[in-house]
């Protein structure tokens, strides 16, 4: 009998149970059973599943991905730490030895979850898996079951970190095809203020990265995250990101998605208490046969919160770009203010774009708006710029730079912004 992909993953899990749970306390390992059970029940989503119409997740897992339960030797990677207040380097999901635990004078800690479990077990146990929805999201459940390592970032009460905390995920496996369950947990306590930079880079090899990120934002806390992924052409990045915000907090995320054969982003934001703000900026740029499938879910369950989402895309070649955004406003979430915009530029003759912003509103005193556009570079604009002496090619480039500038301008981590701009530029220059 041919085994299903799910069965193979279950088998892989049970065969390696010991090594997966090694070094973790019982409290964490005992829950893995629930997660794998949940994965077993839910199964891998296919295109028939709501929210997965654009990403053939099941097919993607069918490929023969190697799974290494120990860190493998990988190519050397550069580490751009200039202007970071602290930084950490992760290889194929495993935190490198020299970055296991770093405690700053101001109490900021960054390192591996295993070290964190020794130094501040209560904080870890309170937040790990508290936001990730392993009961309803099979990819998240799979990561939660398989998790062997996790980047832990801790910003204590009332601490303001000027320079960014930098987290680098590198994926490198020479010419192999490797599956990786990378993970991240951010705990920013009440009154904290920090910037975090996250990069996902595929140095070599093909990867199936099923990543989960949880971000806890305490009361009056301000967190800015810029996350940049640039995967190789045979790699898949499934990014499952969750956040929970306490009273009067602000979370802003700038997300830039480049590269990869498939990039799926599933962002779930929750307001746990009133008077908070969530800003989300996203940009994908595709140039060949690629899929960018961006999903956001903004959960207004309490009153007086503001959310703003702006996702832009440039779809070139024969790529697919998709944005599915949902804003949920519960009956009690009065005076919610939610904006959701998706703008897409079709550059390739065979490119397709699907934009579906959705509002689900049960409260009556709210301010919500949404909109989606799919368009082409405007001939009138090109003509106008050429009339001022710019070549057609330069006019087109300038127009696209202007288009993406809307998103990139929100990146506040200078060295990362520069890197993003030059990566985006090099793609745009090829159009």
């Amino acid at each position: 009998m041919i085994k299903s992909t799910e069965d193979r993953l279950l088998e892989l899990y049970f065969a390696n149970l010991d090594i997966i749970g090694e070094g973790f306390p019982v409290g964490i390992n005992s829950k893995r059973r629930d997660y794998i059970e949940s994965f077993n029940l839910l199964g891998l989503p296919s295109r028939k599943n709501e929210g997965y119409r654009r990403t053939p997740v099941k097919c993607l897992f069918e490929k023969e991905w190697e799974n290494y339960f120990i860190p493998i030797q990988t190519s050397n990677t550069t580490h751009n730490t200039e202007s970071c207040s602290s930084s950490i380097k992760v290889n194929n999901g495993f935190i490198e030895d020299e970055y296991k635990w770093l405690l700053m004078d101001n109490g900021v800690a960054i390192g591996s979850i295993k070290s964190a479990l020794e130094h501040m077990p209560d904080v870890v146990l309170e937040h790990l898996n508290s936001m990730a929805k392993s009961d309803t999201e099979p990819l998240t459940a799979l990561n939660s079951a398989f998790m062997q390592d996790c980047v832990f970032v801790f910003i204590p009460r009332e601490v303001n970190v000027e320079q960014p905390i930098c987290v680098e995920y590198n994926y490198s496996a020479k010419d192999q095809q490797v599956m990786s369950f990378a993970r991240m947990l951010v705990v920013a306590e009440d009154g904290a203020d920090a910037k975090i930079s996250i990069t996902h880079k595929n140095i070599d090899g093909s990867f199936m990265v099923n990543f989960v990120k949880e971000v806890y934002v305490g009361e009056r806390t301000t967190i800015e995250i810029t996350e940049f992924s640039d995967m190789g052409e045979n790699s898949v990045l499934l990014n499952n990101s969750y956040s929970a915000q306490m009273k009067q907090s602000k979370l802003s995320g700038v997300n830039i998605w480049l590269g990869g054969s498939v990039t799926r982003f599933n962002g779930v934001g929750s307001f746990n208490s009133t008077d908070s703000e969530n800003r989300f900026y996203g940009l994908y740029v595709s140039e060949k046969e690629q899929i960018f499938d961006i999903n956001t879910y903004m959960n207004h369950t309490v009153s007086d919160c503001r959310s703003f989402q702006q996702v832009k895309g440039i779809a070139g070649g024969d790529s697919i770009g998709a944005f599915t955004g949902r804003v949920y406003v519960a009956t009690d979430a009065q005076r919610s203010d939610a904006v959701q915009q998706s703008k897409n530029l079709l550059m390739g003759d065979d490119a397709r774009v699907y934009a579906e912003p959705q509002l689900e509103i049960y409260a009556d005193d709210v301010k919500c708006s949404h909109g989606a556009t799919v368009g082409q570079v405007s001939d009138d604009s090109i003509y106008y710029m050429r009339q001022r002496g710019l070549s057609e090619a330069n006019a087109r480039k300038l127009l696209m730079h202007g288009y993406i500038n809307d998103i990139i301008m929100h990146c506040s981590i200078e060295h990362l912004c520069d890197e993003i701009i030059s990566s985006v530029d090099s793609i745009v220059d090829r159009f």
Partner: protein
Amino acid sequence: MLEIKNLHASVSGKKILKGINLSVNAGEIHAIMGPNGAGKSTLASVLAGNPKFDITEGEVIFEGKNLLEASVEDRARAGLFLGFQYPVEIPGVSMANFMKLAVAERRKYQGLDPLTSSEFLKLMRDKSKVVELGGKLMGRAVNEGFSGGEKKRNEIFQMAMLDPKLAILDETDSGLDIDALRVVATGVTKLHRDDNATIVITHYQRLLDYIVPDFVHVLYNGQIIYTGTKELALKLEAEGYDWLINKTE
């Protein structure tokens, strides 16, 4: 400077220009007037090289060269400037960035060295005074969120930056209140020299209170049916176009 001979043009198979003849010399200001739909904007577009229009007959010589063979950008670099009736908004592209590229292209054509950053900034500052445009607009995206008047002033500002040989201003006066009109018209007058030329397209004579044309042409149904001096504009203002149209038909 500009010699238009028997120019015919059409758009999507519809004939719009039906044999235009016009010659413009350095130091001159020409006004082109005429009722809506006469083909004034089309003439401007065809001269600028807008790819929407097809030239079916005729010839245009600009500075001794065949204009119609040149690309839109080469015409601009050679010193042909079009002030748009409806300036285009370009989100995310700052005026400063846009002008930096445009000025660099124009200077390259003129065989001049590129400006240094500080020279460029000084040029921006000086030229924005021509149309009393605040420095704030310079940091904003091209025409985005500009009022109607600001857009028109911005066209003249760009003209000042690029120092064209021939500027064609398509209804730069329409939609302006009297103060803005004065600013725009004064700006154009300041930029006028013996070695450049201006064609102002308008259908109000009020612009011509500030910009004194050497010639006033009436364009009707794709042809220039009458050419006179500035007194013609006054007569048109008072009596409309009918008398002229009846006379020619």
